[in-house]
């Protein structure tokens, strides 16, 4: 009994030692600021002077605000497009590259390149591409005889246009999935090969199930990024026209810009809580990616 007790205590000190650095940093840079933000969201504060308690007025105002409602809808589209289109596409590419086709090392590096280029420069490129007299319209006119269209200037297509440009960032999730796919034991494929399974069947029966955990992780991550998306859209459209591309991140930034600090805090808190609910829901839906339960099957 004595021995078990000391062992337990020892294991716990080791666990705490391992968790301490990450928890401390997280506390100072996430927990404390989060509570500060929650606190200010219940006040009326313009960044100057003392904060006056305001109850839930900011929350009521936020929910009733048409701009915020629009932003919320846009964020849902963002999150879904990132999680359900971007990640599966990245997964497809990773599955191709893991079989080491010609030039795969080069491709892996090049696909990642757009992630290191400044967003300011990329926004300028896309604004020019989508322009009425830009190359996209020229190509569409040549191929399909389509009329010129103001992609970013039309509220009906602007959101689609700003989301479409994220396809160049596919390398981000691809390298995660690729790293994971490379860890799949070769022997599984060799065995399938002997059984005469085609490549496609191998991918469906071996690769996808083995990538399940990483897929859930990347999808969640992609959706989270979609939820807090801000910079590229802000640089391309400023959230317009008529708030067609406004996201919660843009709304929050502009509130701070107008010194509406407590209202910005309210948006921030709302975003974090809603996102956490979505993530938790996703984990419940897809089940835990815990190997202990997976391996038991």
């Amino acid at each position, binding site marked *: 009994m004595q021995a078990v007790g000391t062992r337990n205590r020892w294991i716990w000190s080791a666990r705490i030692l391992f968790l301490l650095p990450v928890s401390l940093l997280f506390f100072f840079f996430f927990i404390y600021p989060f509570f500060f933000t929650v606190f200010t969201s219940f006040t009326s504060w313009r960044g100057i002077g003392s904060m006056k308690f305001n109850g839930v007025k900011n929350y009521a105002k936020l929910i009733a605000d048409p701009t915020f409602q629009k932003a919320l809808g846009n964020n849902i589209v963002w999150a879904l497009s990132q999680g359900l289109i971007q990640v599966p596409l990245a997964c497809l*590419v990773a599955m191709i590259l893991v079989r080491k086709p010609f030039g795969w090392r080069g491709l892996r590096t090049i696909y990642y390149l757009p992630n290191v*280029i400044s967003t300011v*420069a990329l926004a300028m*490129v896309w604004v020019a591409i989508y322009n009425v007299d830009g*190359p996209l319209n020229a190509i569409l006119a040549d191929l399909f005889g389509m009329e010129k269209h103001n992609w970013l200037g039309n509220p009906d297509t602007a959101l689609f246009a700003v989301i479409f440009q994220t396809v160049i960032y596919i390398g981000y999730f691809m390298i995660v999935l690729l790293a994971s796919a490379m860890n799949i034991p070769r022997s599984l494929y060799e065995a399938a090969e002997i059984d005469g399974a085609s490549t496609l069947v191998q991918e469906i029966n071996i690769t996808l199930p083995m990538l399940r955990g990483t897929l859930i992780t990347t999808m969640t991550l992609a959706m989270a990024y979609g939820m807090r998306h801000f910079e590229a859209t802000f640089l391309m459209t400023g959230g317009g026209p008529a708030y067609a591309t406004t996201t919660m991140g843009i709304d929050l930034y502009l509130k701070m810009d107008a010194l509406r600090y407590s209202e910005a805090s309210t948006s921030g808190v709302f975003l974090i809580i809603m996102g956490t609910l979505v993530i938790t829901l996703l984990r419940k839906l897809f089940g835990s990616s815990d190997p202990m339960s997976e391996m038991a099957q």
Partner: protein
Amino acid sequence: MKKPLASIIGNTLKWILLISLLSLALLPLLWLLVSSLRTNLELQTDPFGWPQKFQWVNYANALAMASLPRLLLNSVVVAVVTVVLNSLVTSMGSFILAREHFKGRDILYTILTAGVLVPVISFMVPYFSMITRSGLYNTLLALILVYTAVNIPVSIFLVTAFMKSIPKELEEAAIMDGCGFFKRFSMIILPLSRSGIVTAATFCFIYSWNEFVMAMLLTSSIESRTIQLGIKFFSSQFITDYSSMYAAVIITIIPSILGYVFLHDKIIGGLTTGGVKG
């Protein structure tokens, strides 16, 4: 041998996908290169034209940037220390979260990873007041701490997922052989999840290298500023010298590509050849 037609179609589709993504990824970089060799007037009036005359002067402007070596050095120090610190603390934390069982583990994991949702700009006021009150304002350490912390959720997310995917049998075998807590971490889990750690480290590196808003907020002099602030000197209140700025962007992309290639191709490349055998 079997179904050559299907395989030909499959192959064609595969290469169409790979090549269209290749061009999508390369075009912005090519555009940036071409634009960095044009005049501002050319760039403003026709974004997709070819330079009438190569404007090497843009590169001269970029290289003449005040204190370029100092800014680059600061960026390297910040990025490298951040990556090391972040990888260290998150791989230790992830090990506990992925491989140990205890009450409250899932809650802790959910809280840590919920951080990926945080729009960091909404935390600017508390960050600023913490950094100034602790006397870290205008130091490289301020940037290192903020960048390390901001990347914790993503790193925890990725590294924990990788650690979780390691088959339990491997660890059990090690325990049978008498491996203790530290040995399980350093000899089994750490090496097996290295590709995940390196992937997270890559993201952390790129973030630290490109970050600008926090760097602007938390520093005030050349001694503790990074290269991204140097690039912004081409953009004043009313006039942005885009072509020189793009030349500077090209110059600063080179180290980040090298960093990526080093982290990814060298470390992971070396790993997968001698990697896991199921």
